């Protein structure tokens, strides 16, 4: 019950954040220099032609009325019509979401699959060679910029070994296998730094937990070291890891923007750059708002997951 109330409040707060974000985003994007109409019509366009197009795109209306039209539209699921493509923005975003979302999910699962065992091994062999070498690798993993790592992956796996496509997206209609194959290298490039950070967090969280009194209680009951580690250690260590996973999402989005550019994946990241270059403002503002909403939503999810993993949460919200 209390948790429910808490979530109602969180949702209310998130909505306010999102509303303020929509104003900020709209305002920021309005000051982007460059006239979308001129970009469409090019260098030889005449003044009257430009005016006609601007009128057609609704660019001549005042600031506030365009804002309200936009926001009210979004509330009923209408993100407006792309200036350049002349198709609904939502359609455009949805098309690309089918690349960015699987990519993000793949990267996130990959990094979790690598990081959790690595962190557990490192913590349970604290200061021994597995720990030292895993920590060494993660240091390196954090330091390697993902775009450079992506370049190296392309060099080795696409160019030299020819195992995977160097870039581009085969399309889901070409088969799930082909689609996943074209997302593999990008997902690996995205996952590496994420996995490194996550492994370190997992390790330090687990080390904190291992030092807790209740671990000693568990050992005193007679449980073996391994049982104690998994039954009491890993589960409790997940709590801080969860927070970081939420924060990571924001980095994941940033990473996707760069990585999609390198692998030439027609995802949301590319759409952003395209929209900026073509001053397709309506697409841009819809996209940015969507990404901000995604971050807010993920954090909400993390909070919910938190409450499920940690029974103390209910009380914490009391205080």
């Amino acid at each position, binding site marked *: 019950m209390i948790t429910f109330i808490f979530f109602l409040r969180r949702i209310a707060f998130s909505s306010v954040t999102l509303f303020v974000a929509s104003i900020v985003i709209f305002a920021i994007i309005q000051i982007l220099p460059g006239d979308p109409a001129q970009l469409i019509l090019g260098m030889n366009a005449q003044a009257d032609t430009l005016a006609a197009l601007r009128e057609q795109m609704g660019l001549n209306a005042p600031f506030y009325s365009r804002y309200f039209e936009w926001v009210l539209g979004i509330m009923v699921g209408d993100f407006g019509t792309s200036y350049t493509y002349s198709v609904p923005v939502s359609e455009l975003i949805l*098309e690309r979401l089918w690349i960015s979302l699987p990519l993000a999910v793949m990267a996130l699962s990959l990094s979790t699959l690598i990081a959790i065992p690595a962190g557990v091994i490192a913590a349970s062999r604290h200061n021994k060679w597995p720990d030292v070498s895993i920590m060494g690798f993660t240091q390196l993993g954090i330091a390697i910029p993902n775009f450079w790592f992506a370049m190296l992956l392309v060099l080795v796996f696409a160019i030299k070994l020819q195992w995977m496509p160097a870039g581009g997206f085969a399309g889901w209609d070409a088969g799930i296998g082909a689609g996943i194959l074209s997302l593999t290298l990008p997902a690996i490039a995205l996952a590496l730094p994420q996995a490194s950070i996550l492994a370190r967090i997992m390790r330090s969280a687990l080390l904190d937990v291992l030092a807790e009194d209740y671990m000693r209680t568990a050992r005193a009951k007679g449980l073996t070291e391994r049982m104690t580690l998994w039954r009491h250690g890993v589960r409790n260590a997940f709590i801080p890891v969860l927070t970081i996973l939420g924060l990571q999402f924001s980095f994941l989005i940033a990473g996707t923007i760069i990585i999609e550019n390198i692998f030439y994946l027609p995802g949301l990241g590319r759409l952003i750059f395209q929209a900026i270059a073509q001053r397709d403002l309506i697409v841009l503002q819809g996209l940015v708002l969507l990404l901000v909403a995604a971050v807010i939503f993920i954090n909400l999810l993390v909070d919910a997951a938190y409450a499920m993993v940690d029974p103390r949460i209910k009380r914490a919200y009391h205080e």
Partner: protein
Amino acid sequence: MKLSKFALRGATALAMLAMAVPALAANNSVTLGMVLEPTHLDPTAGAAAAIDEVVYANLYEGLTRIDSKGAVQPALAKSWTVSDDGLTYTFMLEEGVKFHDGTDFNADDVVFSLDRARGEDSVNAQKALFSAIDKVEAVDASTVKITLSQANGSMLFNLGWGDAVMVAPESADGNKANPVGTGPFKFVKWVKGDRIELAKSDTYWGDADVLEKATFKIISDPAAAFAAMMAGDVDGFPNFPAPENLDQFRADPRFSVVVGSTEGETVLAINNAKAPFDNLKVRQAVSYAINRQSIIDGAMFGNGTPIGSHFAPHHPAYVDLTGAYAYDPEKAKALLAEAGFPDGFDAEIKLPPPSYARRGGEIIAADLKKVGINLKIIPVEWGPWVKDVFTETNFDLTIVSHTEPQDISIYAREKYYFNYKSDAFKGVMDELNKTTDTDGRYKLLGEAQQILSDDAVNGFLFQLAKTGVWNAKLNGLWENSPVQANDLTGVSWSE
């Protein structure tokens, strides 16, 4: 030593590639890479070259068309007559032509298309092409009469532009997303940001034996373009974006590398109205200070032809003026001193995104530094470039390629971004418009080139090369690009 290393690498890579790429069975389709994605597919409502690159001659046709050599050919108009005063054009249309949606094409469609393009609320990017037209009339179902208010020597050429293609009143409004034309290919689907698919139209009036399927794959990243070619994801890149990689394709027997010419005069545009560039001596100094060959080598890896004026070297009326300002930094310094800048000065150069501009800009900055002009490099996106440079002419220098065909007339415009004003030049242009005989026109064009060179209006750098790469078995792609088009009507596979 270094070369042999290259060769070795190339050879091993090749061996692996040869094994990896599966043999394509009886090929009836083609996938071409293109760098920029069209914003939409209506060539009569946007300037983007990418639109024409997909639709020109494939999806839409005009009354006339421009062929691979730049000559005007009949298209939907099978023939025409021009009155002696050059004011009345009568076009005889092909018969039995259908739009892709099944509606018939006739003279009314011509009237509609041309009136729409030049009308008051037209959003045609090249509205000026039609400014000479006084009225368009349907004489009968297959005859159209166009009356001009003044003679225009390039009228037939103008009607061959992508911006002058024929559209139907029923479908014109939807052409951006769902193009309907009369061409040999019809639109299938467009995966935004990824590819556009066309298929052979079964209602085509002509007898073109075209491929079943054509796909334009959008790959803007040069590195990705290289990878896509190597991996066989695309069959060709009519305009390959990274000239630095051409040597590798040349070394690979799977590919043909064809370097042709384009209509793109690449210039270091100078703001003629802004001090100190309003001083002829300063502009001349800039022209002397630029080492064109090093720009072509450094920025384009040797692809491109130096020019001395705003005119394409492949055109018969071309006059070679590259010697007028041969690279001579000492002379440049002397001219600067004469102009009152013995120690040089500071200026800005705004560079739009293409690599010819960004790379060329760096080289020019280094060149000009040697004669004392310190350039601050300001990279800009196309959006701000259009606003700052083109619309508000708030710039000192910029680099841009003027890709419209035979566009020397822009120097006669009242208000154009480099703010050049010359009555002599305008006079020549007026004369040109009135002249219809070829020799006379060529002579006038030569004069015009000379004036621009004398006035050192801009730093004339090079003619942008069309660096095409495609599968060696693919035939029929254009070598040059007199208009921005990927005409697929003649494309076929060997074997």
